[in-house]
């Protein structure tokens, strides 16, 4: 037997109070409407949580390769395992005499030299899973299994402190779809400032404002998101959005603008894809991985320079991925799904330095499948970061995990 869940509002349902649309009961899908804090009261200025820093979470989708990025260049086994896709010892940008950054990461290396970049080696999800989708989910839930509350790690913090901010921008993803780490909180998806407005290409919906205000009145989930959109549009309309074509570059540029505008942005997520490098990773100075990392370096260091120029010293960026890749090169000049990965914490509260125990790449260390092991649970890295930037308690954000500080922030 199944219950019919009625969501219709323009058609059905109860008392049409004044001009309000009638509202149907909303069932409990991914997150129940009743669990959502109300965001944005029409007309109210967005409140900002006081005394807290701000956090940007960059997720590298596809399983980003630790060993090409943060290179254990003094380890002969690394060079043997990777062959023609290894970064030669003389080409790395040295960090601490053991590890070096890929030569494409000059911008990040400069930040490291200024003690503004923390580098974590051999980190990841303790449960370990080679499925992109399950591993991403676990990273974004911040758990070793899918949790009963279905909340992302950021969603858990935001929901627990929902009374402290009424900004529709408090949590956002620079994307059409909101990141899973924000699950549980009504986060805003914004792919581009320039395109975030009523009107579209033809201006057709511009005249619809008063009609939409009337139509999105009820308590249903869609109505609540509709009101959030209408309020956010008002705030964004005057901002200078980037016109860059590349969505990642445009996204970071827009994010810096949104942060400076003091709209109450507390947490933002940015995804960067194409890290599932099963084939043709290429040489250190010419090829797929060199290009991907040059793009990453430009995005991250460029974003940090933009924040610096705007004087936004309270913004910290953390960079993570669902898993690292196998130690040994595969048959196609690429690498298959592995386990331990590298992570970065940049700017803001970052302390700078190289963190985490390095187990080495001996056969006994990398196990039967040849993985970089995980010696630092990524929740400890994120725990440092939420504590230093958002003033959050890692025990609340990661229930069931015994937090051990790493010192990255």
């Amino acid at each position: 037997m199944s219950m019919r869940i009625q969501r219709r509002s323009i058609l059905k349902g109860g008392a049409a109070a004044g001009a309000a649309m009638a509202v149907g009961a909303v069932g409990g899908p991914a997150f129940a409407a009743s669990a959502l804090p109300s965001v944005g009261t029409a007309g109210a200025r967005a409140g900002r949580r006081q005394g807290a820093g701000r956090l940007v979470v960059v997720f590298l989708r596809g399983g980003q390769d630790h060993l090409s990025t943060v290179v254990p260049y003094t380890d002969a086994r690394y060079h043997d395992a990777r062959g023609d896709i290894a970064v030669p010892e003389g080409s790395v940008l040295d960090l601490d005499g053991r590890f070096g950054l890929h030569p494409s990461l000059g911008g990040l290396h400069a930040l490291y030299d200024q003690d503004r970049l923390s580098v974590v080696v051999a980190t990841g999800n303790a449960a370990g899973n080679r499925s992109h989708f399950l591993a991403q989910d676990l990273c974004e839930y911040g758990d070793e299994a899918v949790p009963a509350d279905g909340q992302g790690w950021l969603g858990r913090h935001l929901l627990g402190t929902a009374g402290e901010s009424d900004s529709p921008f408090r949590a956002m993803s620079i994307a059409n779809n909101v990141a899973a780490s924000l699950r549980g909180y009504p986060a805003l998806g914004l792919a581009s400032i320039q395109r975030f407005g009523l009107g579209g290409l033809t201006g057709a919906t511009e005249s619809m404002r008063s009609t939409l205000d009337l139509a999105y009145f009820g308590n249903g989930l869609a109505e609540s998101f509709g009101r959030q959109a209408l309020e956010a549009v008002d705030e964004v309309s005057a901002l200078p959005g980037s016109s860059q074509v590349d969505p990642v570059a445009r996204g970071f540029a827009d994010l810096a603008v949104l942060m400076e505008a003091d709209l109450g942005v507390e947490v933002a997520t940015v995804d960067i894809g194409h890290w599932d490098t099963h084939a043709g990773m290429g040489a250190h100075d010419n090829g797929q991985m060199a290009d991907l990392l040059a793009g990453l370096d430009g995005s991250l260091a460029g974003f940090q320079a933009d924040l610096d120029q705007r004087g936004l010293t309270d913004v910290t960026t953390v960079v993570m991925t669902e898993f690292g890749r196998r130690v040994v090169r595969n048959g196609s000049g690429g690498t298959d799904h592995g386990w331990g990965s590298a992570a970065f914490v940049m700017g803001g509260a970052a302390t700078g330095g190289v963190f985490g125990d390095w187990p080495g790449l001996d056969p006994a260390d990398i196990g039967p499948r040849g993985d970089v092991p995980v010696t630092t649970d990524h929740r400890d890295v994120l725990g440092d970061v939420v504590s230093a930037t958002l003033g959050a308690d890692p025990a609340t954000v990661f229930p069931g995990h015994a937090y051990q500080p790493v010192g990255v922030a």
Partner: protein
Amino acid sequence: MTALELDGAYPANDYGSASAQLQLAWIIRAVHSPAQLFERLVEFFSDHFNVPLDGRNGSLLKVVEDREVIRPHAVGRLADLLVASAQSPAMLLYLDNARSFANNINENYARELLELHTVGVDGGYTEDDVVATARLLTGWTINPQTFTFEFRQARHDTGPITIMGWERPSGSDYQHHGEQFLTWLARREATARFVCTKLARRFVADRPSSGLVDAMVQAWSANDTAIDPVIRAMVGHADFGAAVGTKFSRPLDHLAFALRVSATTVGATTDRNQLKGLGQVLAGLGQLPFGWAAPNGYPDVEGAWLNAGALLGRWNLVGDALSGASPVVSADVASLGDGLAGGTDAEIYDGLCRRVIGQSITPGGRAVLREATGWPEDSVPGNAAFAAGIAPAVLALLTSSDAQYR
């Protein structure tokens, strides 16, 4: 055209036109095809066996795959579709099996075959099974001259192989061993349950009931992985009818609904600028047809699609579509008012609401349409007012929260 012919027809800087035409064909079929259930199954299996239109090879080969793999098998047997997909040049390149060698495997395809195409991540396979599957499929590659499937025995691992209890038979018909395994895999209960749950999620509810899925699994097993009986079992189940108006539409569902309901004609074109313009409109939705980069296909639950920015994009998209943002899209919104002129405002609102949303209007809905049309309450709109009010009223209905659910 074959991939080879496509390769010759589209110079290196213009291959995008081939993929843009496929994207336009998706929309034309979604709006105008009389075989809507078939098109929806094509959409489902395009997600299930996702290969994005990406880069020159991916774009040209996906165009061929859509015609030769997905569409012919979308209402056939899953076992046949699975083998066709495994031997599809687009898939062989996308998930790298074309570059997997005996003693030096690439396990990308093997893992997604088990996790995404058949038994699912909880389907009971181990890391050893992933490696064994990759070994079994070494040598399944493409001929670089013809862009067609080719089995190259020199690259194939001929050793004994056991996968989840399946054992390679004796004999040297090595390609057939792989095909046999795929058929065995399609018949597994775990595969039936995984695919039927996804079908039920697509067509019925984000969280389908176990009763519904059980009925579909039973039909699957009784009919040797045939898809048609599974769909009949789903449509015949009480949950199916009860789900009307409860599933949040994905952006492309919503677009197709809005275009159909507003009597829109979507025309074919090979004009590059027109195709580019259409692509820009669709990209704003976050659901360009065949545009999802990862092998799992577009997500299919409300939580993935419903947020404030997404709603804004849907409002604008519908507004643009109805007012001619693309020269290939021409709506006849005025026709929705046919037969309603001369009625009272309330009668007209009710008539429009029935035509667009399929139900009669509420007092609250009337207030919204009054705002959109500017017609005085309890009036009989004159000819000019009537003509001017229909389009804003239809837009108000299509941008309402009701229209976001299907």
